[in-house]
């Protein structure tokens, strides 16, 4: 259920098989070449009219439209709205989920009582809650934030709790023999041990927060990326659908990169990971 962190604890710490040293520049070059090849063949297929621009748009029109929408301020406005909704949902959901996970770890009975309900809730496609949320709080920003929140909170709860459950009891006993009390155990073991699990959850959650916000916008909104896509779709405007998607993708990539950097900083105590994306 939980998105497990790459469990490279003590057991795999001595593993000799390291990923080959990142040949940074070469890899970057190859990645860019791949992108370029895709774009050129896309443009080529459209220009030679093998594919119709009406159905698949084209890189050139995408860029043109992208720049135009940047210039008239519509893209920054709507992207900003969606970004705000997702981030609010992400932050709130993470806060509640992480706190809940630790609460469960502290009071196992609570976890045992609530477990079937959380599992039931988790198996429900939360996106289907959107109409209900719109009835409750209207089509404003709040319904999108709540949808993103509902997706993120459960993931973070399950992941944080799974993290606390995976603590080696020997560590706890060792610390008790060194004079630790219950509160010390939480601060010195539970918290730091859970950080990789929390990050694994956060990385999944970024995508889910966007999903919550955009789907919420599809169902009723006057602003945001979902609104732009919905409007363009009504006008059969392929380029108009793809440009906001592109903006969303760029944002997601940036946020993910930010998260990875933070994670690297906080988790420098871990052995090097093999084949991490």
């Amino acid at each position, binding site marked *: 259920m939980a998105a497990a962190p790459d469990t490279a*604890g*003590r057991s795999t*710490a*001595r593993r000799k098989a390291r990923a080959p040293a990142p040949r940074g520049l070469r890899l970057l070059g190859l990645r860019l070449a791949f992108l370029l090849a895709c774009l050129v063949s896309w443009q080529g297929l459209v220009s030679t009219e093998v594919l119709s621009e009406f159905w698949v748009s084209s890189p050139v029109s995408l860029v043109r439209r992208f720049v135009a929408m940047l210039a008239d301020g519509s893209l920054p406005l709507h992207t900003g709205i969606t970004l705000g909704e997702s981030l609010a949902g992400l932050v709130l959901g993470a806060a509640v989920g992480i706190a809940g996970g630790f609460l469960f770890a502290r009071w196992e009975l609570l976890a045992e009582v609530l477990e079937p309900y959380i599992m039931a809730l988790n198996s429900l496609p939360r996106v289907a809650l959107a109409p209900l949320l719109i009835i409750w709080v209207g089509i404003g920003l709040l319904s999108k934030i709540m949808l993103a929140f509902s997706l993120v909170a459960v993931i973070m709860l399950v992941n944080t709790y799974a993290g606390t459950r995976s603590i*080696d009891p*020997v*560590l706890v*006993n*060792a*610390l*008790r*023999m*060194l*004079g*630790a009390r219950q509160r*010390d155990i939480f601060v*010195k*073991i539970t918290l*730091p*041990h859970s*950080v990789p699990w929390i990050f694994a959850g956060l990385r999944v959650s970024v995508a889910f927060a966007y999903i919550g916000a955009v789907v919420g916008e599809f169902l009723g909104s006057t602003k945001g990326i979902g609104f732009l896509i919905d409007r363009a779709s009504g006008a059969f405007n392929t380029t108009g659908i793809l440009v906001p998607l592109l903006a969303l993708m760029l944002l997601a990539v940036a946020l993910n990169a930010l998260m990875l950097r933070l994670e690297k900083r906080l988790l*420098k*105590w*871990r*052995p090097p990971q093999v084949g991490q994306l």
Partner: protein
Amino acid sequence: MATSRPADESWTPTKAAQSPGQAPAVECERLSMAFARDGGSPVAVLADITLRCPAGEFLSVIGPSGCGKSTLLNVIAGLLWPGEGVVRVLGQEVDGPHPRVGYMFQCDALLPWRTVLSNVEISLELAGVEKKERHARSRELLNTFGLSGFEENYPHQLSGGMRQRVSLARTLIRDPDILLMDEPFASLDSQTKLFLEDELLTIWERSRKTVIFITHDLDEAVSLADRVLLLSSRPARLMLEQEIELPRPRSATEARTHPSFQHHRSLLWEQLRKEVLRTMQGERPYGSRA
């Protein structure tokens, strides 16, 4: 390493030279214990164990694997409650981890997110010792352990032997009177193991702390200890007690070549062999209800 000096004045044998007639360092009286099993009758682990360990003694406890040696140690440490019986440490009845007792585990049990230095000093941190003093004391101790230069490394960057030494340093920085060791060298290769055994003996000669050393390695038990207790297969009861008459100070390597080493070893092996056989055949000859 062997020429190193203790980091702390209090290691000098002042405490070991306690007056006779004082309460033994560790005392177990008629300990029995059973573990609950999912959907079954409880499994008896300890059966009526009584032992006394005077201050300054190096006591080894040996028995077939899975017999309950670690359970016994955890009960003495105050990490587990015995079903029946009493444990006293330094004359006090045990009701939780005792501040004068240090425990070393088979795995290093270091916190992977802490550097060597902050692992070693964690007990001082928990006791509220000021940062500067903490650092100074752990640096000095690491120095005597030949671990200078590794202060800022993380545990995963060290070899198994080094991690176990860090773990020992972490236990000793609190200067415990009693050292409980649960097969601390069992996961190391045989050369590292011999080396660390010698190191432990050097430290022990100087400080004469009370040591209870659990192992399943007969050679290790005999070469280190003043006295060896042999436990039966599960449920563990005391089978045999053997004073080891090997000269001190010893080295773990030289002790193994001493003529009376073989004598002690074969006496113990004769009994241990039977218990190992019982364990392997899965018999339960001591009235366990399972």
